[in-house]
């Protein structure tokens, strides 16, 4: 997928999703320095301020953490359920990454006081995963820390390494009965891709977005 295809598909997706109550927006990349020297503009798709109630920490787990000498002084405030629990805020960005020539899903989680959520907390909160053993040599399907390609902020991203093979198979399974124009095909790809990868990290899309999709042949 080329950047231009990504942008048009993202714009079309945004229009549909916002018609169904979400609040996606297209963020053009206009850092003034680049504008002043005539550099290309490249933007990304963003869903900001998705709130999620903090995880319940059961008393056993809490006690274990307190008993653990190594962790007792570094308990992340965001995992301690306070008297009036405040929600965490997530941001989801869909950015075209030149290295892989496809859209990549980036997410960032913060507690109400602005602290970044830990990687492991995000795994449990968004992915329902308790997997703590991640070798640096294996490809994780869980989000891992990465610098946002446009803003430079600390985000997590879902590695797109096998996106192409996976999405090719899905697109084949959902082939429409008649030849569709490229823009429609790109939009269909985008919706399917985001419904799969977004689901994996706690991003819910309106069901109505898929009502117009053809059934598997």
């Amino acid at each position: 997928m080329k950047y231009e295809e990504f942008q048009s598909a993202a714009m079309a997706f945004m229009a549909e999703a916002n018609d169904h109550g979400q609040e996606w927006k297209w963020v053009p990349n206009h850092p003034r320095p680049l504008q002043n020297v005539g550099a290309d503009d490249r933007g990304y798709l963003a869903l900001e301020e998705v709130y999620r109630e903090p995880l319940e920490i059961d008393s056993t787990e809490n006690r274990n953490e307190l008993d653990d000498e190594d962790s007792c002084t570094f308990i992340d405030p965001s995992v301690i359920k306070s008297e009036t629990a405040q929600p965490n805020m997530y941001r989801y960005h869909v950015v075209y990454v030149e290295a892989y020539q496809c859209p990549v899903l980036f997410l960032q989680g913060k507690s109400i006081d602005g602290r970044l959520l830990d990687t492991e907390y995000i795994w449990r909160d968004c992915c329902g995963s308790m997997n703590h053993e991640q070798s640096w040599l294996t490809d994780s399907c869980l989000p891992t820390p990465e610098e946002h390609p446009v803003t430079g902020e600390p985000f997590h991203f879902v590695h797109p390494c096998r996106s192409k093979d996976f999405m090719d198979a899905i697109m084949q399974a959902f082939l429409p009965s008649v030849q569709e124009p490229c823009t429609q095909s790109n939009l269909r790809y985008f919706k399917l891709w985001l419904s799969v990868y977004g689901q994996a990290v706690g991003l819910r899309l309106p069901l109505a977005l898929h009502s117009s999709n053809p059934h598997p042949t």
Partner: protein
Amino acid sequence: MAEEERAVGEGEGLRGAWREAEHLLPLDEVVRKEVWEGSIPIRVELARQDVSTFEAPMPFYVQAPRMGYFPLVLGQAKAYFQNYVPAVCCNDREMWLEHKGNALKWHLPTGVLFDLHAHGEDLPWHLTLHFSGVETKGLLPYEGDVSLRRHFRQTLKQATSLRYGSCKRVNNLSVAQMEQLWSSLQENKFESFTSVNSELLKLSTPGPSGLTEIKRLPLRIYLPHLPSPIQQPFTPFKDDGHLTTLHDVLLQILPGLFETTRLSFAKTQEEEGEDAGDDQRPTVLVQGISPPLQTPVLWLCQQLAGADTFLYICVIPKSKDQEVFAS
């Protein structure tokens, strides 16, 4: 007929490119070893607000490899300073390095950070090590050695995906090879590094068809005031068969800065000997040197790439342009 003509043209372009490229592609071990051995003298002092003893400690001095990463040398600094810092703060998660009020990104090669932020300054490079306040600095979370390893591997895969169109060459490395690549960075051993690294840079097919294995040049272009690198696709050679030059890349990405370079060339040609035109040119740094802008980028990618096989290009605007960027 049009397609046949295009095919003939493409073949000619490829053959022309190969004539230029075949002498550039073999890895030049003399150049590469010299790049590997590049280092930066660094003076690290402990942030005043993190000193919890009556007397502040003396600064810590270290020679840091350009191709390495700060966490690999800061282990020693942390051990050196730990007796002066509150025990609860002395851990990897809280550490961060500051240069003139700016937090340095631990995941970038040390040489890139120096070229970008301290080019032209007196040595040693003066840095401040902090053990508190990291939350507000916008840095990727650092949770020990595994964070750096994982990030290095991710970056390596990105560069490989750009270069060849897939990550297969990295995925095909054995665990032992990947471990060797990493330990050679930790221990600064060139022979150990290059025996694995060259697997990622050699073409598997000789001749013009081998050149087509390189899909795009793995470039990251940094400017001091931008929050993230500029990455755009560039092929190793143009349709006319000439290799893509550093000037081609910079003119396309930063036309406002490098159009003056054209004028500079013209002026220099007309008024031979005058240097007035050159003063307008931004400083372009790769591994601490300014390559001639006519250098083929393919050669730079083969010989001057970072350990993660990205070519890092730092563009430092002149003070006049700084105002443009600062506004």
